[in-house]
């Protein structure tokens, strides 16, 4: 069995975001990057399946992006993936979700993966398109927003998270693509021995030009902070002072404190 996991590297979301020189995306200066949280669930599910099947499946990790994404790849390898592909693209942030999906599908086409795992979205762009679009390009069955996963004899049974706490159970046959929602599993921390082992694993670098033949269908036009709706009071400074001011406001504006 062959498994592909798609991984994106994204900035820490507690960062302060500033527009880049073109004003269409964030400037990378001063940002700390990490593995997209949803993709950690995707990696973990692939590794859990490999363990369930006695270590037989081969897990390939794929990441599209500039040189820095090697760090995300290393983490995935240390979590238990066997090998990796780095589609090197210094301008991946300018590609639209359709182009990113086309790149992944172009790589996957010749490889005949049985299962592909992706996060349900990235924390930075959040299009929720790439996984589904890869499945469509490859003609794979696909289930999204998955919070429970079972595999037996080529059949995948998943629970999709719907609104209001309701779940929907769906069965599909491999080859299939699953997009992973938070809570699907508990992503493991790489151990030191596994981090050491990961250093020896193969990382195949492929220039993006070899895989992309599609024009963008979306153009990025602007990147900015949302207009503040305002009205709210912001309390900053000394904690004791903040406490007193908050209690004053609660006494004044609510019937909660007497």
């Amino acid at each position, binding site marked *: 069995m062959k498994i592909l996991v798609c991984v994106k590297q994204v*900035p820490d*979301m507690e960062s302060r975001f500033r527009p880049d020189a073109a004003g269409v*995306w*964030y400037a990378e200066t001063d940002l700390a990057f990490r593995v997209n949280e949803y993709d950690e669930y995707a990696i973990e599910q692939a590794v859990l399946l490999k363990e369930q099947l006695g270590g037989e499946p081969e897990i390939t990790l794929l990441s599209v992006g500039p040189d820095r994404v090697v760090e995300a790849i290393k983490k995935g390898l240390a979590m238990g993936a066997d090998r990796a592909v780095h589609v090197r693209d210094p301008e991946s942030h300018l590609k*639209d979700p*359709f182009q990113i999906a086309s790149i992944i599908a172009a790589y996957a086409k010749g490889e005949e993966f049985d299962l592909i795992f992706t996060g349900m979205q990235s*924390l*930075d*762009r*959040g*299009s*929720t*398109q790439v996984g*589904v*679009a890869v499945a469509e*390009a490859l003609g*794979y*069955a696909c289930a*999204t*927003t998955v919070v429970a996963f079972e595999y037996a004899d080529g059949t995948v*049974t998943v629970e*999709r*998270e719907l*609104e*209001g*706490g*309701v*779940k*929907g*159970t*769906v*069965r599909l046959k491999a080859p299939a693509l699953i997009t992973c929602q*938070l*809570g699907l599993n*508990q992503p493991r921390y790489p151990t030191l021995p596994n981090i050491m082992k990961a250093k020896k694993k193969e990382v195949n670098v492929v220039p993006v030009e070899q895989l992309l033949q599609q024009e963008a*269908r*979306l*153009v*990025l*036009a*602007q*990147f*900015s*902070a*949302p207009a*503040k*709706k305002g009205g*709210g*009071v*912001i*309390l900053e400074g000394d904690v004791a002072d*903040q*406490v*007193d001011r*908050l*209690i004053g406001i*609660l006494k004044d504006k*609510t019937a*909660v*404190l007497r």
Partner: protein
Amino acid sequence: MKALLVGECRDGKLLEYSYELFGFASQLGAETAMVLVGNDAALPSYGGTVYLAEAGKYGEYNPDLHKRLVQAAVEREKPDYVVFLHTSYGWDLAPRVAALLKAPQASEVVALAEGGFERPCCSQKMRQVVKPVGSPVVLTLQGGAFPALVPGGTPQKQALDAEGEGRTEFLGYEAAVRKGVDLTRAEIIVSAGRGVGKKENLPVIAELAKALGGEVGASRPVVDSGWMDAGAQVGVTGQTVSPKLYVACGISGAIQHLAGMKKSGFIVAINKDKDAPIGEVADVLVVADVMQFVPALTAKLAK
């Protein structure tokens, strides 16, 4: 300009937020038609064309077939826009329709922008404007971003069919598990978010809740990490609450959480990130470390 609106059914009923699609179309100034996989009882209150495919035949979740049903409606209507809600149904189906139509797609649209669409990015902290190239354009709309509009009237129903089989088999719904406190009745809720840091810090939140005479809630990451039971979760996939006072401790304010608590009477957010999206709905944003501020507040209240 014409928009084909994709309505949504669950368990045989039209989901209320399908009416937000009409609100959006009216802002866009577009003529409308709707496509729905459902039944007669689920038809919207709307005097225009509704392309109705029978849910009894196609299922409420069968994306390969629903994709082709939407395509059939697109062929008849030739719309400029095909519009979904950004829901578990919409974000699942919309990219499949976009792939079939070779159409650009903008997800989770919150506003119209000149020549394009505004959408959130960077976990709701920032906004981007995207401009589609080509037509038709597939859109998904963020829930609540556009006001619901009930146009009224009786639909002109047109039967819709598609050939083939789906590659996924829908086995059924599983209702939400509800255990623990019914937060929907609580007058005061103190909720813990990821900013609390670790499970061992949770008693600090519980002590504040006790000092205020309220209950303890949680945001999704806290539940996913196993720090608290799912029954405490506030948000789209948890409980929708409207207490007199909601105190969000270390909660960044993902849209799914905001949807579950923004109707609270008074909202206090404690977060060390001044730009966190929770600040958008908070009446008071305390810019501080939860583990420093909350114990100090509890101590003062106890006096």
